[in-house]
């Protein structure tokens, strides 16, 4: 079914009774070419690109709950390609370019809104670091503008320029950065994959990996065994649990990241604003809520909820840079399980077990990577070769010392 304004008009006239399911609910087949474990954003986009770009549509996405129930359903919806390191920046820029064409491609409005992202700086060393980063962005085609205080005042006059503890001196801006309606991304990919023949199977938890002579040949699920030529793990938050089934340990810790949304308000913010010195970032959703967050709570957790100190810390950061939000009320807070990797960067790789592939370790930056992660993972699955822009995201990089540490924090996952 093709969506359009005309379709809405015609359906509206006939009582909206002709809409079709956005995805089918098929019974699992006995065998697939590829099984993707995890119906989150990355899993669904992997399946979509396998079918669309690599012609492999005998694919199942197995989801233990409802699709989009992982971090794609609980994040702060920001997209950006403002990384510093060579191993990262071209990959995230690929993702950004894919975002820009996504909606027309899969005929679903995910509200990709490129209203810009601004990282505030407060002193000369921070500015120097941003110049370096901004140049990396420009060198990879991502675009960047360094705003001084005067220029920043024009776009964000509400910032506390005059009374701040850490005076705001300017910002590194990526005009193409912005936000996307996160749930719609999952649904759009699901719809696209489904229409290309991919089976999306919900309520189908994987309970074991079937190995035959050291080769992964399928999975055990709550709905019975399913065979596959290749099994692709894509279950951020449960990565360690899944890989434990294969007897493998990961350079990943699970942490809780909280996010927050305020009551709906008429437009108040120009785009995404981040305040690194105080652990706060914020944007405003199309519906009007201020969507904001900060640091992870900092301890290993699978609880999908956090605690008060982080909430207060984040709100302090918010009030420190934009005291106009004092009367906006926090409406809802939630927590997701983050795959915090040892250097803050992800993995898209084969595992030591033939037929078993791994995608994870996205820390709290996985949402923006959804298109490129799926595409590059599909590339690896289809061709058994790394996509050049994701070639560094290897599981054995720590053995070689090929660390991709954007924040320079070392093997301390809660600091990335």
């Amino acid at each position: 079914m093709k969506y359009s304004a005309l379709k809405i008009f015609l359906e509206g006239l006939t009582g909206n009774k002709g809409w079709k399911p956005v995805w089918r609910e098929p019974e699992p087949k006995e065998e697939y070419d590829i099984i993707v474990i995890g119906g989150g954003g990355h899993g669904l986009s992997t399946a979509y690109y396998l079918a669309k770009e690599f012609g492999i549509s005998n694919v199942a996405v197995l989801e233990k709950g409802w699709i989009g129930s992982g971090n794609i359903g609980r994040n702060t919806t920001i997209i950006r390609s403002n990384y510093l390191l060579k191993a990262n920046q071209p990959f995230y820029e690929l993702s950004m370019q894919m975002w820009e064409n996504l909606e027309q491609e899969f005929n679903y409005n995910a509200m990709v809104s490129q209203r810009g992202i601004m990282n505030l700086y407060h002193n000369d060393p921070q500015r120097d670091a941003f110049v370096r980063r901004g140049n990396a962005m420009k060198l990879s085609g991502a675009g960047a503008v360094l705003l001084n205080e005067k220029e920043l005042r024009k776009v964000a006059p509400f910032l506390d320029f005059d009374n701040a503890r850490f005076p705001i001196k300017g910002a590194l801006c990526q005009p193409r950065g912005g936000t996307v309606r996160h749930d719609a991304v999952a649904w759009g990919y699901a719809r696209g994959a489904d229409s290309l023949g991919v089976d999306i199977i919900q309520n189908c938890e994987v309970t074991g990996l079937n190995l035959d002579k050291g080769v992964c040949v399928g999975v055990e699920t709550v709905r019975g065994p399913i065979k596959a030529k290749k099994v692709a793990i894509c279950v951020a938050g449960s990565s360690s649990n899944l890989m434990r089934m294969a007897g493998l340990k990961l350079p990943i810790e699970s942490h809780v990241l909280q996010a927050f949304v305020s009551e709906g308000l008429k437009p108040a913010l120009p785009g995404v604003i981040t305040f690194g010195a105080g652990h706060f970032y914020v944007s405003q959703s199309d519906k009007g809520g201020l969507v904001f967050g900060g640091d992870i709570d900092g301890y290993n957790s699978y609880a999908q909820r956090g605690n008060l100190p982080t909430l207060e810390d984040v709100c302090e950061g918010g009030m420190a840079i934009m005291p106009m939000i004092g009367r906006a009320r926090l409406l809802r807070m939630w927590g997701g399980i983050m795959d915090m990797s040892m250097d803050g960067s992800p993995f898209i790789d084969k595992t030591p077990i033939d037929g078993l592939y791994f995608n994870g370790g996205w820390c709290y930056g996985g949402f923006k990577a959804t298109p490129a992660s799926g595409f590059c993972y599909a590339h690896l699955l289809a061709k058994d070769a790394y996509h050049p822009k994701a070639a560094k995201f290897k599981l054995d990089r720590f053995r070689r010392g090929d660390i991709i540490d954007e924040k320079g924090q070392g093997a301390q996952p809660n600091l990335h």
Partner: protein
Amino acid sequence: MNKVMRLHGSKINRKKHIKFKFNDKEMTGVDGDTLASAMLANGQMLFARSFKYHRPRGVLTAGSEEPNALVNFFNDHSWEPNTKATTIELYDGLLAKSQNHKGSLEFDFMAINDYFHKFLSAGFYYKTFMWPKSFWEKIYEPVIRSAAGLGTLEKKDDPSIYDKGFLHCDLLVIGAGPAGIMATLTAAKNGLKVILCEEDFVLGGRLNADTEFINEQAGSAWADDKLDEIKQFANVKVMIRTSVYGSFDHGIFGAVERKTDHIRSSGGKPRQILWRIYTKRSILTAGALERFISFGNNDRPGIMLSSAIRTYLNRWGVCPGKRIALFTNNNDGWRTARELRDSGCNVVAVIDSRMESSNQLDGVPTFKGETIIDTRGRKRIKSIELKDGTTIETDCLGVSGGWNPNIHLSCHQRGKPVWDDKKLCFLPDKIPFGMKVAGSANGKFLLSDVMRDSIQKTEQIVKELGYKYKKISVPKCTGEDLIIEECWEVSGTKSRSWVDLQNDVTSKDIYQSYLEGFHSVEHLKRYTTLGMATDQGKSSNVLGLAIMAKIQKTTVGDVGTTIFRPPYTPVAIGTLAGRARGKEFRPYRLTPSHNWATEMGAVFVETGNWLRAQWFPKPNEKHWRQSVDREVLETRKSVGICDVTTLGKIDIKGRDAGEFLNRVYANNFGKLEVGKTRYGLMLRDDGVAYDDGTTARLSDNHFMMTTTTANAVGVFRHLEFCRQCLWQELDVHMISSTDGWAQYAIAGPNSRKLLQKIVDDNYNIENENFPFMACGEITICGGTAARLFRISFSGELAYELAVPSRYGDSLIRILMEAGKEFNAVPYGTEALGVMRIEKGHAAGNELNGQITAQNLGMGKLISKKNDCIGNLMSEREEFEAPESLRLVGFIPVEKSKSLTAGSHLFSRSIEHKMENDEGWLSSVAYSPNLEHSIGLGFIKNGHNRIGETVVAVNLINNQLLDVEIVSPHFLDPEGERLRA
């Protein structure tokens, strides 16, 4: 004031009139009113417009669960959007206005949306607005954004003050209805330390809203008496206007106390206080909330919950209509009808969906087994149409779809409530440790059951905490049970039937959501926005789930519920931030010379939490560079003084202190002589450079370590880890003494001469006695203990002199006085930075956590002979890669040009793109000694490329510059000055 509509109310003072304004319309209420009760008493039924269709809306409830009556409320010098009129306490001069409309509340142009509702069904926006691509940001989104949102945030700083505090108790009682009062009394009499929180401004909960009797006393009077009794207990703290908004780990609760929202201005006191309440036990006695029924056009102003009508009637003496009808699927509607009739109000009909209802009411037409199919009346309900075709004229309709126990806080730790098929509600399950749920929050709807449940649960708590239980008897209560039968949605209507009033979600949206495959409750919520409004679906969620269950031909229990998450009611961000805003966001750390530097007119800069002098401008200096250049030149020419107290200082003692240092530093420390100082490079356990500094050996077993300012706390933590967790066998002890010592760098050719004036005579600091890298404990100024280190960051003959912090202010004054004859200058962090770049020292821009010892050219320093943190991991192949980055110096080929830090480095005549990137400039400065720009930076294989010209690419400023790779030691490469 319309006196006809004001009857006796249990919690108002009818004699005390209060004037207020809604949308510039003057109205009068009475003491004890909320904005909602006062507006209703004034006959104002139109409160607001809905989110999507801009439908006229009245007030549905009488509490914080209100979905409709949101207003913009002026209090404490600022407008507060989205405030529930049902929770605003009336005061003289109160201002409120309606929100979310274009034009007036009565004539909202945006109401045109309502006529196009067929095309604005669930998720329509996902299916259009995609063409042409560029229109989204430019046209569609701005239109959607300005139409969406609710109230308007004032774009000015919140003028109010907020505060935070901690409270501790044995038992937190949440909600002061009958169950809460009973629990408080029981616990109080048994000696527990109790905190009772109530979100309302009166205690009693539904006792004030109903007409039940307890021990033959009217419920609201009983509540007043019990409050008086509770106040006698020193072990009880009663907090009204206090909402417990979240339940967190280990019995910690978040609560907001509204201190001044009920008066016009806070008078400079905190408007609200955020409390963190630490409890041993808690009891959730938050009562139950009535829910709605879905039927055609059930959103019109004048349609209210049955229990809310009773609240307005009994508590505030307001009869909200002249012809009131009730629609119910349980006994609650009858109760409202009876009480209305008994108060002399006109009840025109009771419609009961139950066939078998035994209720009857003399003189009131009743319709059993009947439902409402549609209503009429745009700005206020005019009539209802029953399924059998009967039309009844009415101006107020009370609806009761049953009651939802208020289990919210019992689910904040991912508890999953269970569905009760008989009571037709979710009951708490998997409750957090330490919590109990009692009363109607626990599904007890009969008052005597509520009381008994509460006493029993409190008894258990008393015993769990080890107190001897003193028995409390259950009071005698009137009351009746609910006897509910399912009636969620009235089918067979062509009109829209609302489920979520605020977000304009109708039952058709739920059907469409199912049709499109959004079957899971989470998908339903996300696709239709059901329950995502500011009321968090308190009146709508269960109704929506029930309709979904009906479509799927299953039970609500099987459909399940979405996750309850904090906060229970929305909390102002300002409150959550408390006082941590503006300059008070984080504490300032001030250096010992801060007062003196202020007197000197220094310009300060934030480095972490420290404020440091950045430069000391002279009156004739117009530009900061003039000051910095002068400070550098004067220091190199004669002597300069800089406060370096902010560097981390760790005092390390013990028999094995030397061995300990040997292991925590990458370079060897074991053989450092007493009286000597050594540069130390610390690696992280992954082999990357972490920190550097100097460590002095003051005696055999006593070392003084310095760290960078930024890593002072982290290094100390790391050392404690090494000491306690890795090498317990070492005899080593340490303490952070960063704040204990004031430390000054005295640098320049005349630094020794200056110091000799204040160092006591028995200490010889001539070069041969106190050479480069010497250290010692000395006295100055006639006996003041001090430590002197001959170390140099500037590259000059230099010392660092430390005295106990309390002498820091005196010392800077003494040094400057003594330095007068040498024209000593104070210098700030900028000059410090210039001099260290001239000397080629790495600092924060270089030690950024990504750089290795090899990159710094210090690979050979790493000890291979013994175990030290990071040495093994620094041997990994990428660390040892031959062409890796190397710290070198850079100068512009054209000397008049300036380098820019952050520029990327490329070989000449190669395309400037990421793949060809070879490095970057990390720190740059203008060297007043060399009279041109200089820089430090990293470039591949840099040490083998000295003399090569490369291009510094700064696309951010459209700047390309030819630069020459040079040694990083721009000045005095042989180090003759510092050894002088």
